[in-house]
Structure formats: structure tokens, C-alpha cells
């Protein structure tokens, strides 16, 4: 079979125009499918950036909260109640909100503000410049050096600006694992200073961050928090809740599905049509091979090999092209969200193999129907 497959390979790749058209079709389809799903995954991952950056094991919140960006204030007694819950090692408050910063040139910039527990500074970012204890200095804020950092005029230690008409001094710069979804620069300060500077409704605790004594305590903590009328989720559960919201309640999931289906059919029509034309143009050759003594099974093997070789090569090109494109985009736009995951790659591979199977099926049917007698008739 090895020699026959080599024959099939040469018949395929030596027809350069057709082979190129086939590769372009498959590469386009896999590029588009991976790219669309990578953008979607990027958006979903960044929607949970706060959860990832803070890193708490459990989050207590109002049951109506769907995403980390849309917190609902919790009364202080919930914090006390959680702290006295069996199985809780410690629990601290977290403030998340937005504020308007007036820059030195007089322009305003919306900013995300995170207020860390004054005592423990739990969830603090990794420092780049300055000391973590400088956050206690008068009007002290840390700024995160991420893709949105320049929107605050790239401040350094000692820079000053106004935040909701309060003086704000940068006492350090920090970095986090992931920038926010909405393109806002991020400031860190203490919880008390955050609720003092930013106008708030009646309840000021956005989330209670909980560290259980052991993983086995998590179900009990959840139960007791539920008895209070609130919701306790692990980090992964909170991220999944956010992903579910974006997929099923914003239309993003439907759009992704539609785009993927369109891409699949475009890829199928380009590759399927080209491969079928390739088979039709070589029908006489397949007929000659049949007359010379090639068995039907061997002809089917040749066609499947040609289709699969094209599909996998095109898929590889699509993956490479997509990776290159995202890499170049991230060089230019550091906050670019697209993320390729193994699931993206697997999904695209399955789609490409379906295209391959459909294209082969049509070709195989046609080739099996050839009568070598036609070859004698000329």
C-alpha cells in the first residue's frame, strides 16, 4: 500500500493548481474556525480577569451576580457571619468598582478600582515598583502596568491625579495575570480608602473572599452561606458562571455558532467542490488504474489518503496562520484577547475532518462507478 499511497501523493501534489486551491480552502476554513473561537475564548477568559487576578478560593456574593464585573453590595453582617462559619480559615471583604480619574491634562478616564482588605491586603498584585506597604500611605494607589496603563498617561511612582475629586498618589506599579475585558486601567488601594473615595450605595462589600480550612469544607460553607440568602462559589465555579452568562444571555454564543457554521460551509464548498473537480479531472486515470488491475479498495485508499493529506496539511497551515496572526496582533495591541486552546484546535480539526469525509465520499462514489471499459472506448 505504501507505493500506491506514494502514487496517490504524487498525483495530488504534482497538480499544483488544484492542490493549492484545496489547501487554500481547508486552511481558510480551519483558520476562520480557530480564529473565531479563539476570540471568543479570549473574551470569556478576560471576563473573569478579576477572579483570576485576586486568586481567592471562594467568593461569596449576592445570588443575582452573574459576572465579576457586575457586583451587588453585601451587608457587613454577611462578612461577620462567613467569618464565624465552620470550616472557614479566614474571610475578607473586597471592593470592586469604577471611578473617574482626572488626568494632568484635564481629561477624564474611567478606571477600575479594587479595594483590598486593609489588614491582610489579600488578593494584592505582584509589585513592579514600590513596596506593598506603601499602599497605606496617604492617598496611596497602585497602578497596574497592563495594556491599558497608558490610558492614565503611564504614571510612575509619585504621579498624582484626581479620583472623584480626591487627591490620588501613585505609590507603586504592579502587574497582574490578566487585564480587564473592558479596556479600563486598574488601580489598587485599600478597601477603606476605596469606599471613602467612591460614592457607594448602602452596602459597600462587593465580595467576601473566603479561604476554607480544607477543600472538604467547601460544601458546608456553601450550605451555610446559602442559609444566609447569599451565594458562595469556588473560583472555577464563578468563572464558569460568568462564561455561561456571556454564552447564553448575551447572544455571543449564538453569534459564534452562526459564524462557525458559515465558515464550515464555506470551507466545505470550496474544498469539496475543488476535490470533486480534481477527482472528475482524474477520472480517466482512475479508470486506467482500474483496468491495469487496481482493486476498488486500493482506489478508495488512494482517495482517502489524498483527501486526508490535504485536510491535515491545510489544517496545519490554518493553525500556523492563525497563530501568526494572533501573535502579530498581540505585538501591535497588547490587550488583544484571542486565545487558542486545545479545545479550539480539536473543534477545528473535527470540522476539517468532516469536510474531508464529505469531499472523499463524493469522490469515492464517483470513482467506484467508473467502468474501465470506458477507457477502451476512448
Amino acid at each position: 500500500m505504501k507505493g500506491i499511497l506514494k502514487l496517490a501523493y504524487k498525483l495530488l501534489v504534482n497538480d499544483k493548481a488544484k492542490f493549492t486551491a484545496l489547501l487554500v480552502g481547508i486552511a481558510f476554513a480551519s483558520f476562520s474556525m480557530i480564529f473565531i473561537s479563539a476570540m471568543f475564548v479570549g473574551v470569556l477568559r478576560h471576563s473573569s480577569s478579576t477572579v483570576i487576578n485576586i486568586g481567592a478560593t471562594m467568593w461569596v456574593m449576592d445570588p443575582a451576580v452573574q459576572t465579576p464585573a457586575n457586583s451587588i453590595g453585601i451587608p457587613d453582617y454577611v462578612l461577620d457571619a462567613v467569618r464565624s462559619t465552620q470550616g472557614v480559615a479566614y474571610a475578607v471583604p473586597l471592593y470592586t468598582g469604577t471611578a473617574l480619574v482626572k488626568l494632568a491634562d484635564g481629561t477624564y478616564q474611567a478606571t477600575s478600582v479594587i479595594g483590598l482588605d486593609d489588614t491582610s491586603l489579600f488578593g494584592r498584585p505582584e509589585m513592579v515598583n514600590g513596596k506593598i506597604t506603601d499602599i497605606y500611605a496617604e492617598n496611596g494607589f497602585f497602578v497596574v502596568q497592563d495594556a491599558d496603563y497608558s490610558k492614565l498617561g503611564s504614571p510612575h511612582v509619585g504621579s498624582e491625579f484626581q479620583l472623584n475629586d480626591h487627591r490620588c498618589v501613585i505609590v507603586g506599579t504592579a502587574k497582574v495575570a490578566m487585564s480587564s475585558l473592558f479596556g479600563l486601567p486598574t488601580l489598587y488601594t485599600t478597601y477603606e480608602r476605596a469606599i471613602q473615595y467612591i460614592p457607594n450605595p448602602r452596602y459597600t462589600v462587593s465580595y467576601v473572599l473566603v479561604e476554607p480550612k480544607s477543600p472538604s469544607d467547601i460544601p458546608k460553607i456553601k450550605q451555610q452561606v446559602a442559609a444566609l440568602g447569599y451565594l458562595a462559589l469556588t473560583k472555577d465555579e464563578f468563572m464558569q458562571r460568568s462564561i455561561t452568562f456571556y454564552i447564553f444571555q448575551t447572544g455571543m454564543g449564538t453569534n459564534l455558532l452562526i459564524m462557525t457554521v458559515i465558515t464550515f460551509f464555506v470551507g466545505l464548498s470550496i474544498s469539496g467542490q475543488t476535490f470533486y473537480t480534481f477527482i472528475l479531472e482524474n477520472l480517466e486515470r482512475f479508470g486506467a488504474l482500474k483496468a491495469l488491475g487496481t482493486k476498488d479498495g486500493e482506489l478508495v485508499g488512494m482517495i482517502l489518503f489524498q483527501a486526508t493529506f490535504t485536510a491535515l496539511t491545510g489544517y496545519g497551515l490554518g493553525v500556523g496562520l492563525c497563530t501568526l496572526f494572533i501573535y502579530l496582533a498581540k505585538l501591535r495591541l497588547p490587550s488583544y484577547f484571542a486565545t487558542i486552546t486545545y479545545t479550539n484546535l480539536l473543534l477545528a480539526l473535527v470540522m476539517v475532518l468532516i469536510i474531508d469525509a464529505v469531499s472523499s465520499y463524493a469522490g469515492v462514489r464517483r470513482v467506484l462507478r467508473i467502468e474501465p471499459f470506458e477507457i477502451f472506448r476512448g
Partner: protein
Amino acid sequence: MPRTAIDASGLQKWFGEEDARTLALRGVDLHADFGEMIYIVGPSGSGKTTLLSVLSGILRPNSGHVLADGTDIWTLDSNHLAEFRLHKLGFVFQDFHLFPRLNTAENVAIPLILRKVPWDTAIQEAIHYLDIVGLKGRADLPPMKLSGGEQQRVAIARAMIGKPDILIMDEPTASLDGDTGHVIVKFVRENILDANRCIVVVTHDSRIYEFASRILKMEDGRITGTQERAA
């Protein structure tokens, strides 16, 4: 005593159904021995190509038998029939049916590749056969770069490389000018026909009759006459 290469009897073949039925073969009997070069001649539509297809295991007859080198080929299933064609028969098609995407040596090597001979060995053997048919140094060229006569020689080399017992040639001179056709068939007669090989040729071309051992005349689906030749 010559050995029997082909013994066909009572061959009938029709196309279409009921009222639209066309009879292509009307009870043909044919005998050929090894060492013979048999010509089947006759006007267009007389059934020559149909007979050739039935004899070579490509077109199933509606009735009759074909014994080729002792094997009743139409009792074989499709896989064994393909095996039989691969190992016992060599084909030279009217339009050559060379593969334009393969070079000349690869074209010639196809029967060996189908027999699972290693690629490099098959190519070496193909180069040797190209040498035999007078195409030394043309192995790497695509067939389309060769003249009609050279392409026919490539087709002959491809048919011969598997050392078939029976060589089937369909209108071997149809795509060639008169002189080239004459040279090619003379080459086949002098270099390929031997006591262990039978060659069956379908042709219209009376200029090559001189090379036949026997000429069978076909008309309207029947063999209407046989002419023994001294050649």
C-alpha cells in the same frame, strides 16, 4: 504443440434493456495460442472493442466463457479479476492513458507499484524497460514532453514491465502517423512477441497487417472470417 493462451466460446454481450437492447457480441468463439499475434479488425461498431474488453476481464459478458491461460476469468470475483489483470495481462490503450502528473519512469513503473514492489526498485526496472523501448534518458521527463511515438513506447514499456503473458493492444497506431505506427508495431512483433506470450491487437490500420500471425474479421458482433498470415 502450442499452448492455449485464450479460449473464448459463445460470447454474447448486449447493452440496454428490452426494446432498446443493442447486441454488441452475437456468440463469438475465439482461440489464440502463445506465440501468436492476433489482430481483430473490422469497421466501427462491429464489436472489436467490446470483444477486447470481455477477453481482458474488464467487461462482463451476458453469456459465454473466457479461459485465459487456463483460468475461467468470469468466474472470478472482482478482486481476483483485478489480480488476474495485474499479473497476467498488459494493456496498451488507444490514447495511451499516461499520467501527466507523473514522470515517464513513474508511468512505466505503475504495474510494479500496484504489485507492491518497492518504489525505488520499480523505478529502476522502469528505467531498464525505457531503455529497451529506446527511450534511454527520458525517464525524468513528463509524458507530455514526448512525441506521440515516444508516448506509445512508454505505454508499451508500461504494459511489458510486469512480464504479462497476454498483451492487449487497442488501436496501437490510431494516434500515430503511418511511419511511426509501422515502426512501433514492428518493434512489438520483433522484440516482445515470443513463444510464451500472446498479443491481441484491435486495429483499423491495414498498413500493419503484415505483422499479424492471424487476422480475425469482425462484423456486426460476429467473427466473419479468419486470415492466416505467414509472418
